C-alpha cells in the first residue's frame, strides 16, 4: 500500500537547473505552442470552440451590449456571485455546538497577505454579539488599590479620541493545525491552517491607557484582559509586550470598524501571541502582579507534554509556513508551469526566508518573499514549479529573524510527542498525484 508513495529517484523531479534550462528555451518553444494552438483551435483551454474561435469572443456577451447596474446598487459591496465557493466553514464533527466552535478561513483562495474581513476565521466560546458601540465601556483597574493612581472608564468616544496607530499583524489560534498532531486528518489548507488571518488593525497602544491611569509600572507585571460577552473571556497578557507598545486596544480592521464576529467594537491586539489572547468585546483591563490562571490558560490552551505535564501560559505562535496552492483538495488541470504560493509567519518577528521543496523535503530551494515583510505579520512567498506529470510533494519551511527554523513533524514530535493540541508549527506536506489531485499527507 505504501509502496506507491515511495519516492526513491531524484530523477522523478525537475531540478532547479532543469527548470532554468526549460525557461531559457522558452522562446523557441513559444512559437511551437502557438502553431499547435492554432492547428487545434477547437480545443482551447477556455472553450476556443466552434467556427473561427472562442464563442466568448465571437459572440458578444450581454455585458458588452447592454446597460449595467447603477452606482450604489449595493450600499455595501459584496463579492461576485462567482466567488461564492470561498466561505469560512466549520470542520464537520470538530465541535458539537456552533456557539462554541470555530470557522476556518479559506486560505486556498486568498492572495497577498490581508484577509478580507468577511472571511476572517472565527472562534467563539459562547456565541457572538453585535454590540451597540455607544453603550460599550472599557474599564481599567488594578488588582489592588495601589496598582493604579486612578481606575478609569472609557467610552468608545474616549478611546477613538486618543492617538492611534495602524499596524498589520497575523492572528492565529493556538490550536491551528491542532487536528494534525497525530496524523493527516483534514483534506484542505482551509482546515489544516485556516485558523489564521491577517489584518491591518487600528487602535490605541494599551500602554497609553495604563499611563493615563497612572499605573504603577514597577509593580505591574501582568495584565488581565476581559471580554464583555457571555464567556467573559479572560487571558493574562505579558506586561513586556504591553510596555513595548505593541499591544493595542483596537477598533479598526482593514479600514473599517471590527466585524462583530471579530469583537466589535473593541478588541485587544497582542501581536505574535495566539488568538485567544486577543480578547474580543474588550470591557476590562486589570493591572496585576501575578498571572490569573483563567479557564483558557489552565483547562484549555495548555500544551500536554510526554511526561504528563502541561505547559501553561504558552502564548507565542512560533515560526510557521504553509503552501496554500497547490494544496490539499485541489486539482492541477494541466502539466507545465505552475506557481507554488503560500504564507509564512512568526510570532517572534519577521520572516527571514522561506525554502520550498517539491520532493518531500529531500531538496530545498529558496522561495521569493513578496513584500512587505513585516514583523508578526503574514509574508507571502512564491516559487516556480514545472509539472512533468509525475508525483511531487510540496513543502515549505520558514526561518524567522531570530534564527528559528520551522521543524518537520519528526523534529517537533521528538520533543513534544503528539498530544499537545496547541502550537503545532510543523512543516506541511501536500502530495501531488499523477492524476493532478493534491492530497494532505504526512511523511
Amino acid at each position, binding site marked *: 500500500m505504501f509502496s506507491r508513495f515511495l*519516492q526513491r529517484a531524484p530523477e522523478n523531479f525537475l531540478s532547479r537547473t532543469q527548470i532554468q534550462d526549460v525557461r531559457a528555451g*522558452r522562446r523557441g518553444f513559444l512559437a511551437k*505552442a502557438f502553431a*499547435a494552438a492554432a492547428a*487545434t483551435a477547437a*480545443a482551447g*483551454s477556455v472553450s476556443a*470552440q*466552434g467556427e473561427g474561435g472562442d*464563442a466568448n469572443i465571437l*459572440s458578444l456577451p450581454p455585458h458588452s451590449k447592454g446597460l449595467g447596474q447603477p452606482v450604489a446598487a449595493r450600499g455595501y459591496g459584496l463579492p461576485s456571485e*462567482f466567488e461564492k*465557493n470561498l*466561505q469560512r*466553514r466549520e*470542520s464537520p464533527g470538530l465541535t*458539537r455546538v456552533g456557539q462554541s466552535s470555530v470557522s476556518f478561513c479559506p486560505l486556498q*483562495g486568498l492572495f497577498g497577505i490581508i484577509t478580507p474581513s468577511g472571511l476572517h476565521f472565527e472562534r467563539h466560546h459562547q456565541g457572538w454579539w453585535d454590540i451597540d458601540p455607544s453603550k460599550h465601556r472599557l*474599564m*481599567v*483597574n488594578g488588582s489592588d488599590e495601589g496598582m493604579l493612581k486612578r481606575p*478609569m*472608564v472609557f467610552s468608545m468616544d474616549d478611546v477613538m479620541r486618543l492617538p492611534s496607530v495602524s499596524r498589520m499583524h497575523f492572528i492565529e489560534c493556538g490550536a491551528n493545525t491542532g487536528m494534525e498532531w497525530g*496524523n493527516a486528518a483534514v483534506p484542505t489548507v482551509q482546515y489544516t491552517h485556516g485558523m489564521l488571518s491577517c489584518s491591518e488593525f487600528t487602535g490605541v497602544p494599551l*500602554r497609553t491607557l495604563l*499611563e*493615563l491611569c497612572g499605573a504603577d509600572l514597577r509593580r505591574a507585571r501582568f495584565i488581565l484582559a476581559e471580554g464583555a460577552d457571555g464567556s467573559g473571556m479572560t487571558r493574562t497578557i*505579558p*506586561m*513586556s*509586550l504591553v510596555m*513595548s*507598545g505593541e499591544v493595542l486596544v483596537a477598533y479598526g480592521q482593514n479600514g473599517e470598524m471590527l466585524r462583530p464576529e471579530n469583537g466589535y467594537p473593541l478588541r485587544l491586539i497582542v501581536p*505574535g501571541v495566539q488568538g485567544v489572547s486577543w480578547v474580543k468585546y474588550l470591557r476590562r483591563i486589570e493591572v*496585576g502582579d501575578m498571572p*490569573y490562571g*483563567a479557564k483558557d490558560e489552565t*483547562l484549555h490552551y495548555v500544551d500536554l507534554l510526554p*511526561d*504528563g505535564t502541561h*505547559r501553561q*501560559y504558552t502564548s*507565542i505562535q*512560533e515560526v510557521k509556513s504553509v503552501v496554500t496552492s497547490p494544496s490539499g*483538495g*485541489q*486539482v492541477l488541470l494541466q502539466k*507545465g508551469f505552475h506557481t507554488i504560493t503560500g504564507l509564512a509567519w512568526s510570532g*517572534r518577528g519577521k520572516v527571514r526566508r522561506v*525554502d520550498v521543496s517539491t520532493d518531500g523535503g529531500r*531538496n530545498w530551494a529558496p522561495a521569493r518573499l513578496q513584500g512587505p515583510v*513585516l*514583523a*508578526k*505579520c503574514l509574508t507571502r512567498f512564491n516559487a516556480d514549479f*514545472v509539472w512533468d506529470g509525475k508525483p511531487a510533494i510540496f513543502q515549505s*519551511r520558514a526561518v524567522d529573524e531570530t534564527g528559528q527554523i520551522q*521543524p518537520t513533524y519528526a523534529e517537533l514530535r521528538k520533543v513534544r510527542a503528539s498530544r499537545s493540541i496547541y502550537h503545532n508549527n510543523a512543516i506541511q506536506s501536500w502530495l501531488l498525484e499523477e492524476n493532478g489531485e493534491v492530497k494532505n*499527507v504526512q*511523511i
Partner: protein
Amino acid sequence: MSRFRLLPGAWRLTACACVWMLGAGASQAQSLPAPKRAAAQVSLAAAGISGIGRTATPAEIRAWDIDVRPDFKGLPKGQGSVRQGEVLWEAQCASCHGSFAESSEVFTPLVGGVTAQDIRAGRVDSLLPGANQPHRTTLMKLSTLSTLWDYINRAMPWNAPKTLTADEVYAATAYILHLGNALPADFTLSDSNIREVQARLPNRHGMTTAHALWPGKELGGTARPDVQGSACMKDCKAEVVVKSFLPDYARNAHGNLAEQSRLVGVSRGADTTRPPQARSFESDRDVAQDGRHPGPPEKGVKAALPAAATMAAIPVGAAAVMPLLQKNACVACHGMDSKLVGPSFREIAAKYKDHADAVNYLSGKIRAGGQGVWGSMAMPAQSLSPAESAQLAQWLALGAKP
C-alpha cells in the same frame, strides 16, 4: 489638569521598567524604536492628553471586577454544600454536562480519569502516554481551584451566564469535586476552607511554565525554544515515505471540495463526490517545459475535471435553442457536457428525464432561478418569456440532444 502634569515622572519610571522587562524579548519589536525612545515618544504623545475618560466609581468596579486569581484574591465570601450543588446541578447543569458531569454530548466531560493516588500526589497518571483514558477531563487538568470557581461564576450556565449567586457557585464547585472523589458528600465549600481544598486537586502539580512560549521573563521560562528545525538544503534524506494520509472513505467528509475553491485559476477543488479519476495526460513534453500556460487540454481528461471549463463543441441538434441560450447568457454558466458554474445541460436532462412534469418544472425554474438543487451556487432569475423558457425546458426534458 494638574493630575496629569504629575505623570512625566511616572513615565520616566516606565522607561526603566521597559528596559528591564524587554530583556531577551527585543526581537519582538516591529520596527519600533529602542525601548527608551519608545517610552519617550508615548510620553510625548500622551503629555497633552487630558479630559479623556473618567474615574471609575467603586460600584462600577464591584460590578465588573469579578475575576478570582489563583491566590483567591477576588473571591467573594460565601459557601455551598455538595448536597446543594447536586440540586443545582440537576436543574441547571446536567442537561449539557450529564448528571455525573461525565457527558461528552455537548462538551468535554468534567469528571473522570482521576484516582485517589492522583489526589494524594497532585499529578494525574492518566495524562501519561498509553493511559487508556478517552477524554482529558476538567478534573484531570485543573491545577488551580480559583479557575473552576471563576469560570462557573462568569460563564455558567452556558446559555445564561453570570446568573448564579456566589453561594450557588460554591455549591456547584463542591459538587463537581465530589463527583471526582475529591470531596466527601457532606462537605460544605466556603471562602474559609477553599485553600485546603486546593491542596486536594488531583493535578495541582501538573503545570509548568518552563518553556519559551511566553514573550517575556515574568514567568521565568527558558531562554531558548525547545524545538529547532534543520537548515539542510540538499540530499536531506535518502527516501521519502508517506506515513499518513486521508483514507478514501474520508474523501468527501468535508463536503465536495470542488465547491470550496475558486472556479477560475490554475487549480480547482477536486470533485470529492466521485472517486479519484485516473487521468492520462497526453504526451506534451513541450507544453510542460514551456513555463507558460499550455495550449490544448488533453483528450480523456475532460470527464475527470471539476468545473474544468472545457465546453464541448456545440452540437448541431441544439441549433434550435442555441440563440436563446446565448441571448440569455445560459452558456456562461452551463456547458453542454461539463459542469461549469452550474450543472451541464446533459446533467439536468438526465436528472429530470423520468419526471412527468419536467417541462413545467424546468420552465418555471429557469425563470425563477434557484439554489441548492445542484449546490450552493445560486442561479439568478432569468427574464425569458414563458414561451422561451418552455422551449428550453422542452429541449432539456427531451434529453438536451445535440
